[in-house]
């Protein structure tokens, strides 16, 4: 949007400007920026038993990334997290885009009611969503099998959340079910903002709604699709609540559902017999930070820059 920058010279109002900016900047710096920077600092230190914290350079990183025990756990959680992200990109975002496209069809009745209801799961706590699905998929209750029976697929039902091979995919689908509302809302809003005259010409030429959506509207909302993708990436590599609620900090069975967030929690606070270690925890957090930073920079420099060239 083209708006003029700030207009009033602050020299006429130094005190008010400082007073307006100071509280937000101070709280934000103290409780957000300082902890992020300090966590990175802590990742270069270690506390030998009974001693003072000492600078150890990259030792913690060497431990997490190269020590046989640690590296296996770390890369397992990293690749699990990549799979978790891939399911969101391949299932959640296309469904969200398709539903937003359908909802933005001209002269659609009950548009608002559909939208309100479809976004509802997104408003619930991840913990609550995890428990809801844990109950529904529980072989003890059997309601999941009953539901599959309605569409004739009862034979497919199994204890998906309990099996090593299917637990992570099942949890990814649960998360997709909850978060479809985000691409749905954001892309729907972007579709509504497309000026009518851009679409009218094509309609007059006899293009179908699908052609108009695919060839005209979708390319126009591509910046929003890219933004949704980076939000998905950041959200997925920061996820924790769902796995913790359904599978606990050990992310079972046999770490099959372990992602970066649960690994961070276990490293920081410990579990069972292993003691928590703040320095190694800070190391895992810093690695998560690097991964997220890489994603955000990729978005800013590669995607965003290329997009802005084509923007209207």
């Amino acid at each position, binding site marked *: 949007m083209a708006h003029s920058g700030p207009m009033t010279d602050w020299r006429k109002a130094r005190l008010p400007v400082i007073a307006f900016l100071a509280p937000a900047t101070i709280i934000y710096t103290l409780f957000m920026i300082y902890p992020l920077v300090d966590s990175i600092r802590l990742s270069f230190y270690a506390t030998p038993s009974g001693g003072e914290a000492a600078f150890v350079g990259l030792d913690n990183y060497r431990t997490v990334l190269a020590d046989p025990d640690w590296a296996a756990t770390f890369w397992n959680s990293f690749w699990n997290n990549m799979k978790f992200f891939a399911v969101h990109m391949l299932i959640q975002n296309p469904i969200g885009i398709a539903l937003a496209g359908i909802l933005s069809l001209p002269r659609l009745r009950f548009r608002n009611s559909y939208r309100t209801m479809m976004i509802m799961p997104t408003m619930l706590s991840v913990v609550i969503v995890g428990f809801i699905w844990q109950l529904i998929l529980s072989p003890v209750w059997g309601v999941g099998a009953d539901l599959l029976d309605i569409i004739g697929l009862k034979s497919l039902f199994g204890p998906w959340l309990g099996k090593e091979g299917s637990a992570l995919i099942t949890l990814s689908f649960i998360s997709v079910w909850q978060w479809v509302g985000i691409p749905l809302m954001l892309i729907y809003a972007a579709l509504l903002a497309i000026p009518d005259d851009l679409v009218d010409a094509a309609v007059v030429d006899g293009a179908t709604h699908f052609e108009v959506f695919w060839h005209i509207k979708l390319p126009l909302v591509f910046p929003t699709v890219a933004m949704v993708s980076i939000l998905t990436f950041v959200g997925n590599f920061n996820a924790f609540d769902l796995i913790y*609620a359904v599978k606990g900090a050990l992310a079972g069975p046999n770490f099959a559902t372990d992602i970066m967030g649960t690994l961070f929690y276990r490293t920081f606070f410990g579990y069972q017999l292993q003691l928590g270690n703040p320095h190694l925890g800070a190391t895992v957090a810093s690695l998560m930070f690097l991964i997220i930073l890489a994603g955000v920079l990729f978005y800013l420099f590669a995607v965003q820059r290329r997009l802005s060239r084509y923007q209207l």
Partner: protein
Amino acid sequence: MSFKNIRREDASRAVIVHGILLTYTLVALYPIFLVVINAFKTRKAIFRDPMGFPNAETFSLEGFTKVLAKSNFEVFFYNSFTVTVITIAIVLLLAAMAAWALSEYKFPGNTVLALYLAIGIMVPIRLGSVSILNLIVDLGLINTLTALVLVYVAQGLPLAIFILTEFMHQIPKDLKEAARCDGVGEFKIFFAVILPLIRPAVATVAVFTMIPIWNDLWFPLILAPGDGKQTITLGVQQFIGQYVTDWNAVLASLSLAIIPILILYLIFSRQLIRGLTSGAVK
């Protein structure tokens, strides 16, 4: 093509479109619905007929009585409510002040400060948890709701400032200039002229600030897990961990967590969507 054909085509297309939308709506709502109806049934009925409505024979509130007797649900609600409301109030005020200064005054470093304050939109505050815990311990605030409020204010500010800055650019210049010509001070312009004007954006910011806070598990787990300080999300998580085999109690506790959010959502959904579609968020 005759008109009749067009109409028939329209009708069949409408069936497909509404078929898809209804199917997805069912997928989105049925799991929630299933949990809520079963919370009102006897244990036997939960297993014998999970998909049936509670009726005179199967209706039971035993789950709810158990939850209310065995846990401090009122306290969890009170904690979540206090933390959320205080955080929203602080975020709105501080973010509006900062957004106003950024959008109105020309000063050195304006753009840099705006970018600095925007970092938090993309970088999750959780990654700083190790230091946040140290900081909260040093401040003597461990196991207090104040700790949660401070962290959530820091978490909520970046997006709130961003949305409100965009919004304040749209305030007509004449309004401010008129006030300035009358010799009104800068503080008064903000509190008497600008603050009332941003009301439409306030609902959007409030919802975006509220949902992640109300639903958060991470910080309550780390900073305030102690008895009497749990938020609703943590409280439910701990309660279900304890009573995992008591289906009535589990279903009832989930329903108690779901229902208030659903009611709030139905009240505010219109404003949320309006805020989104009016371009408050891009």
